[in-house]
């Protein structure tokens, strides 16, 4: 009977060594950003008491417990490796916003738009071009225009699937009376408290 107990404990020692090695490997791969974040959330991480607890006392308790009940430790570590993690909230399945006729405000030329949308910052912290940091998106939007198209500004109420109701503003291409692609310039929650 005793031989089974020794065998059980020997396996426990091996399992604990493997788990601690895996833990040390994953610890060394943590990025500086994660370390800084944890330090910010738990300032006590840098105290001597926390370090003694974290580096010596807790690992010792876990090791002793691991040898005694290694199947549970083996199961938990296996679950961590192969079980996946909490799924972040979905972002890609949001319904798509589209401009309607009732949202249109006024028809404007490219020159008028680029003049009114020039961003000026006294500290020079934005590009000296229409729409500032959104200029690349504006240029991409303009590329979708055809010679006979016009552009209209718009302001629309939008109820996304997640989050509060918003006012969206921007410009939309009008082609033969149909509304084509749009360019968003502002997004503002209606009830912002």
């Amino acid at each position, binding site marked *: 009977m005793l031989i089974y107990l020794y065998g059980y404990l020997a396996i426990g020692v091996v399992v604990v060594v493997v788990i601690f090695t895996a833990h040390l490997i*994953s610890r060394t791969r943590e990025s500086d950003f994660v370390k800084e*974040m944890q330090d910010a959330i738990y300032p006590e991480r840098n105290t001597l008491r926390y370090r003694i607890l974290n580096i010596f006392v807790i690992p010792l308790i876990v090791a002793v417990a691991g040898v005694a009940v290694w199947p549970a430790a083996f199961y938990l570590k296996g679950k961590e490796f*192969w079980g996946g993690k*909490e799924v972040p909230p979905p972002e890609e399945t949001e319904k798509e916003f589209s401009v309607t006729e009732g949202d249109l405000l006024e028809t404007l030329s490219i020159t008028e738009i680029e003049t009114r949308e020039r961003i000026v910052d006294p500290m020079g912290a934005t*590009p000296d071009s229409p729409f*500032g*940091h959104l200029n690349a998106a504006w240029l991409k939007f303009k590329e979708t225009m055809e010679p006979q198209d016009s552009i209209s500004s718009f302001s629309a109420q939008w109820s996304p699937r997640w989050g509060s109701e918003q006012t969206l503003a921007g410009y939309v291409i009008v082609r033969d009376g149909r509304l084509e692609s749009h360019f968003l*310039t502002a997004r503002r929650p209606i009830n912002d408290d």
Partner: protein
Amino acid sequence: MTAQISEKLTYEGRQLSMCSEPLSDYFALAGIRPSFESNCTALWRGYVGSWEILENRLYLIGLSGTLEDGTEATLQTLFPDFPGRVFAHWFSGRIRVPEGKMLDYVHMGYASTYERDLFLDIEKGVLQRASVRENGTSDTPDAAEGYGVGAITVFPRGMKDKED
């Protein structure tokens, strides 16, 4: 969903926690979404931005995060030509800055309630109005001051790599 780590804001010489994410508006309007790695349940967005209100203007002055390829993301990663300061002209809305002791902890988003909320109303990156809402007084005199999250789960990099 775990309570989320806030953005950082410097306002009138004070270091504050900002429970608003102006960069998400930038990503939506610019039509881009860098692949930030989500390292823990308290930071699904994968980055922390540092902001400043200077001369009544909202600026992004720093960024910390890790991209999915493992490289550290900085302000220069998003705005290569503006590595030190970016005027947040794309943002219009209300910034919420919780202050004082916590009254009610909610383990989700920025839903926890604090003794006061400082609201900063921004229009195209320019501060229009600052106001304070009093939410009550804490019954716990020795409670910690300021915004915080109760608990997080950190994902080891090895685990993430395995999923990839």
